[in-house]
């Protein structure tokens, strides 16, 4: 297996974006019963009813690749209502669990893609970043992907935004 660097991730970003995009659409459609469309209307970034963020990292030796997801809370609630009763959801908000699971599934697909390219990476557990930290706004954005829900007219605005970036960490001496 080859060592990976932030430059390698940069060189692969178009393909990784494709893997992420397909993964988000497939996961929402097949597992959570929500029709999602990939798009690029970045100006609709703002969510009206609040957002849920999740993150997950791939790493190998001195490189971390971090994936950040932002979900409209309304989209996650729609997905949750297909699985849980209203009473259960009132007592047990599960939107963070859905956000983490989607991050987990999508990142696994990227891990498999990188493995095919000869890069072996380890995947961490998905996590919810601290409330005061918006991981999408870190000043290192390489790629922003936007997904819409609510039918072909995309009238519901941005349902999911994904960003990823790689960092070369200084080697431990």
């Amino acid at each position: 297996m080859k060592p990976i660097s932030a430059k390698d991730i940069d060189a692969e970003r178009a393909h990784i974006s494709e893997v992420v995009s397909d993964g988000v659409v497939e996961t929402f459609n097949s597992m959570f019963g929500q029709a999602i469309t990939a798009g690029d209307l970045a100006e609709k970034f703002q969510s009206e009813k609040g957002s849920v963020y999740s993150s997950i990292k791939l790493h190998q030796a001195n490189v971390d690749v971090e994936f950040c997801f932002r979900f409209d809370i309304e989209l996650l609630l729609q997905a949750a209502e297909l699985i849980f009763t209203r009473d259960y959801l009132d007592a047990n908000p599960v939107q963070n669990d859905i956000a983490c699971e989607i991050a987990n599934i999508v990142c696994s697909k990227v891990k498999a893609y990188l493995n095919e390219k000869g890069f072996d990476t380890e995947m961490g557990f998905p996590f919810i970043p601290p409330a005061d930290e918006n991981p999408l706004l870190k000043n290192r954005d390489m790629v922003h992907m936007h997904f819409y829900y609510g039918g072909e007219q995309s009238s519901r605005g941005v349902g999911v935004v994904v960003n990823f970036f790689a960092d070369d960490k200084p080697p431990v001496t």
Partner: protein
Amino acid sequence: MGTVNLPDLRVLLVDDNVVVRKLIEVQLANMGFKNIDSAGNSNEAQEKISATPYDIVFLDWNMPGKSGYTLMQEYREDRQYDHIAFVMVTAESQERYTREALKAGATMYITKPIAPATFKEKIDRVLAWLESNRASKAGAAGA
């Protein structure tokens, strides 16, 4: 299925994510399963498996603490539990993980995202395994 009656089968779902547990539970219930328990980690799963003779155990490969893969390996080393069908559920889609899981004793390997049609097809194969396993045990006991 001759010796396998879905409402009688005891199922344990082990995953740290409540949404995944519920998704699988709903799909199993739609198929006719009635006895479905769940555990949020390997320790809880071990307690439940000690107390209840489950027929099928779904295990998330990657969980904080002891992984589902490690837990399955431990049970597969103990013949007391060889009646259990272990179903590994994971987002790891690489073929090598499937091979590794099956080699370590998994009865089935289900990749997330879980699509209902694929899920049912795989559970039918698990039921066939249970049937075959019971038949061979009955044959061995009668020999």
